[in-house]
């Protein structure tokens, strides 16, 4: 009875304070709204309209045709023309263009001989056999692997139409059926992951600031002379933000569904349960930070210390499997990793809680042990 009563008192206090803090209140809605719209539209791994340069030493009609058909792929746009390879290299260094296409003087001859062009990999010692040399060359600013990959995609571009030959279509070795995201749209994978990122950010931030703020403003010295128990204080601090988190998750998922046509294949109940568990794990993580930190600035720094790996290692940005084992271990500790897996599983693949048991159990264990640790670590003394 007393237990519930005091928790209710803390919850109601937190809600009053939250309601009065209009900026925070606005951010609760604005963060998921703006971030989703931003990332939904902005994050795109399909590279298009790269600024490129052209060094045309051939001046033939074929060279012009080739340049046009390369531009027609929309991967690059020839903004600049250079007279020499040296000038082109300098342009790449200046950052004026990302790649340069060099059409050599003997381009037309190479094209005519070109048995290999766009058909098969040139042999290792291609340079020794002039009849098998590629017709032209790309110089690429290779620092961004995504851009290099896009240009590499152009390497095997079929040029049969150009030289008026019958189009040769190699039969692929494998057939591929992309499940769950047949159109291969990025936003389908990003939107559920974004729920994890936004919740990590806001939930950890809210609770990491909460206890430190009371300490900084002097409220704590009074609070710890009252009969309030550490566990009551912890639970009371968490509950209001659980609702905040659910609202935020709802905004992200609803918007992804209606604006970005992200399929919600799993049941809402399963999504709700998984999200709830992650919210609690994140809030508890914030509490642990809050107990350790002496000032709000320290709390903020520790929050970012957790936040960055949560975004980069959780599988939100890069596939978990692509990371080295040590990074995977770190990722396994973070609740965000488990939630990214869970929420993608439920939303996209209609996995049920049974399928996701290892991740779900980790979230439960993290939240409960963390809460216990927070309550034990919280000292009702000043020494």
């Amino acid at each position, binding site marked *: 009875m*007393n237990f519930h*009563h*005091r928790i*209710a*008192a*803390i919850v*109601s*206090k937190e809600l*009053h*304070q939250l309601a*009065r*803090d209009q900026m925070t209140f606005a951010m609760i809605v604005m963060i998921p709204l703006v971030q989703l719209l931003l990332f939904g539209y902005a994050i795109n791994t399909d590279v298009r309209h790269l600024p490129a340069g052209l060094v045309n030493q051939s001046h033939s009609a074929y060279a012009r045709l080739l340049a046009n058909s390369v531009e027609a792929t929309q991967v690059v746009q020839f903004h600049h023309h250079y007279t020499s390879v040296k000038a082109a290299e300098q342009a790449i260094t200046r950052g004026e263009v990302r790649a340069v296409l060099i059409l050599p003087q003997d381009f037309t001859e190479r094209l005519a001989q070109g048995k290999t062009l766009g058909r098969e990999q040139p042999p290792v010692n291609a340079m020794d056999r002039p009849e098998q040399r590629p017709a032209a060359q790309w110089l690429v600013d290779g620092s961004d692997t995504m851009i290099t990959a896009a240009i590499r995609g152009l390497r095997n571009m079929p040029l049969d139409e150009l030289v008026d030959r019958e189009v040769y279509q190699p039969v692929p070795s494998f057939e591929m059926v992309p499940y769950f995201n047949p159109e291969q749209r990025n936003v389908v994978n990003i939107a559920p992951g974004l729920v994890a990122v936004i919740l990590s950010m806001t939930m950890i931030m809210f609770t990491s600031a909460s206890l430190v703020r009371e300490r900084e*403003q*002097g*409220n*704590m*010295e*009074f*609070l*710890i*002379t*009252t*009969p*309030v128990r550490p566990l009551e204080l912890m639970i009371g601090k968490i509950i209001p933000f659980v609702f905040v988190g659910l609202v935020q998750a709802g905004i992200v998922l609803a918007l992804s569904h209606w604006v970005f046509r992200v399929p919600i294949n799993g049941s809402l109940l399963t999504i709700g349960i998984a999200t709830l568990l992650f919210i609690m794990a994140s809030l508890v993580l914030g509490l642990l930070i809050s107990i350790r930190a002496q000032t709000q600035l320290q709390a903020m720094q520790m929050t970012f210390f957790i936040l960055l790996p949560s975004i980069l290692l959780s599988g939100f940005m890069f596939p978990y499997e692509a990371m080295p084992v040590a990074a995977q271990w770190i990722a396994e500790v973070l609740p965000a990793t488990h939630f990214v897996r869970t929420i993608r599983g439920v939303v996209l693949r209609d996995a049920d809680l049974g399928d996701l048991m290892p991740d779900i159990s980790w979230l439960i264990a993290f939240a409960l042990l963390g809460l216990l640790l927070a309550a034990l670590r919280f000292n*009702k*003394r*000043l*020494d």
Partner: protein
Amino acid sequence: MTSPAIVTKGMSRYFGDHKAVDGVDLNIPSGSIYGFLGPNGCGKSTSIRMLTGLLTPTRGSVKVLGYELPHQAEALRVRIGYMTQKFSLYADLTVRENLYFVGRIYNLSGKVLRARVDELMVLYHLEAIDKQLAGSLSGGQKQRLALAAATIHDPDLLFLDEPTSAVDPENRREFWERLFDLCGEGKTILVSTHYMDEAERCHGLAILENGIKRADGSPQALMQRMGANVIEIDGGNNQLRQLKNQLIARPEIISAAQLGTRLRVLVSSEVPQPLIYLSKQLGRDEQKAQRRLQQVRPSLEDVFVTCTGNRNEFSP
């Protein structure tokens, strides 16, 4: 005779090498107002924090309302109220919300809570500002709200850490009226202060300096027991400053302080006839005739000066 509210033996708290409180013995009777008097950094707040169970004593025993501290601190908490030196209620909650919150933390609910909050609102003149945010209140209003919050659960023992430091004299007087009311209801109040006039209102008093208790007792007893006689030298002119420096160089003179045209001199009680002794000290100059010496009643400030070893500017 009721048992004492607070008993400590050798209560000490060290922060590293710094002895914030060192071997303080207290015996504070129930139903009295007891004062901790001392300058800033003398160990008042640290002592109060140990007595409320917030700090663990490095040495010594502490017994408050019969509870052994620090391990019985939780049981003690429902029976004490604590008003911190710095305003510690929530600046972004209204007066009423703050009281409701504190009340509910102390397990009041429903009608009882509402009645108690309304009662405190009237008692501490908070009705007119009940919807105002606590952060926007004046010093006096904050202090009344803090006292209301500290007494919401009707505690037997109240700790007030420099409660009047940010309050004007008018409010201070009113505040003390309230303390006497609470004391009249049988509550024990421990208040720390560095105001002499406040200390003089207490039933009992401990003078603290550098973490050590220099003296304790009722203000009257302290003044009677004081190991010095107070003599005021009146008249003369601006030579008083020079005279003061001359006097405090002597070991029998505990202190000399200028009060307008008078010089208040504390002469050690080891000197059998202080008036005669002092008039000899005045020397042979022509101004001696104009000066009048008079023995006066000691004040608490004199007691304080005598106790705290603050003998003169030249002493180590």
